[in-house]
């Protein structure tokens, strides 16, 4: 899966480098949104059948199905818990960050 890469935004360093009107380079991610998360999903890989329902439902598309075991991109998972709620086997647990 092509995971989004964070690109450092180059701020103008002089008046000459200011854009003409409020515009800036598009299509780049300048920061992750991991900080939004209060709880993170943890998959019990011993039980997971890779039915991919979580992959379909994840609103942020952060679940990678390509590796042998599902991987969650924690830079962009905002911790909504939808995957844990919908997992038919109940093998995704939401764990408080910092615990």
């Amino acid at each position, binding site marked *: 899966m092509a995971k989004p890469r964070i690109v450092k935004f180059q701020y103008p360093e002089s008046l000459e480098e*200011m854009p003409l*009107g409020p515009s*800036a*380079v*598009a299509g780049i991610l300048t920061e992750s949104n991991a900080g939004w998360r209060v709880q993170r999903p943890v998959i019990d890989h011993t039980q997971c059948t890779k039915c991919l329902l979580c992959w379909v439902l994840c609103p942020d598309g952060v679940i990678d199905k390509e590796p042998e075991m599902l991987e969650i991109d924690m830079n962009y998972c905002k911790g909504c818990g939808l995957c844990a709620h919908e997992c038919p086997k109940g093998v995704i647990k939401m764990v408080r960050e910092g615990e």
Partner: protein
Amino acid sequence: MINKSKSSHFDFLNGDEAVAYGAKLCRPHVVAVYPITPQTIVVERISEFVANNLMNCEYIHVESEHSAMCAAMGASLVGARAFTATSSQGLAYMHEMLHYVSGSRFPIVMMNANRTLAAPWNIFGDQRDSLAQRDTGWIQVYVENGQEALDMIIQAYAIAENDQVYTPVMVNLDGFVNTHTFELVNIPEQPEVDAFLPPFKSKNAIDFDRPRSFCMTASPEWNMEFRYQQQEAMKNAEKVIAEVDQKFGDTFGRYYGGLVEEYRCQDAEVVLIGMGSVVGTSRIVVDKLRDKGGKAGLVKLRFYRPFPGEYLKDLSTKVKAIGVIDRDISFGYEGAVASDIKSALCRAGWSPKVINFIAGIAGRDITKENIEEMYNKLFHLTQGKEEKELQFVGLRW
């Protein structure tokens, strides 16, 4: 004003038609307009040009003036030359978008037919509509007749699209007095206009090879720098306006003087300053006063933004009293134009004797007699007599 152009021709046009011809000659890719009296003839003529294949542009029938400016902005965003026209309530309705367009640096040209604002409802001319848009970041020019209207539409694109400016331009015609008065207007030939105004190659358009986000948020840490840019662009415009006028005159034989035009100001003791159609009437009065030996002069304020502050500082050293005709009033103070002129005079260290004449509100005629009376009051000042600083001219009671 002698026409040097060999291949151009004259036609009997009203001011609105002159604007339509001016727009046609500029080959805009997109025209998005909503009709409103007294601008409607502009819309009608352009739609006829398009329907008759005399004008190759996307003509968008919008549902409001707000949408007209939005559509023009979208067009400019993709690199198109865009034109629109409005008046009064329509201008007020698109107010929000005026800021968007200037702040995003899209060089759109708009004609505005100066008409008063309701209430009381009235379709006739004064300049309260456009003067109320002072701080929207648009360049504003006020024309005196149909010929200047046509010529200024062409010049407006040359000014707006200049690399150092990239700021939209509003070309103002007094409602009815300019928009509906017929006169002989010289229409330049297309190849000459094409040479004067090359195709628009926007440096602020969407580029699929270098994708950008437009009209984005700028935080408090960055917003002020964009505003500074706009102020710098306006300062640049002062120079560009003079250059464009010179080049236009060299090409078409008609020079307008840039930010201001002086009429018989040499050795003048009193000077009247006005904008738009009232200048034409005032010329006749000045001639009459001069014939009788009165040292009267006239200044035609052409551009309201950028404001010719430096010129006025200079003028203040030459004359004894100045009258300002405002077809407008900022309730609770005075006319908007007079305030700016006084501020320029104060910068020159002059304690100005200025009378602000509020006249021509909502289409009230400003007669030659009215103007002569204004000059008489200015002469009173030079003789040491007292005059009220703010005077309504032609008030019923």
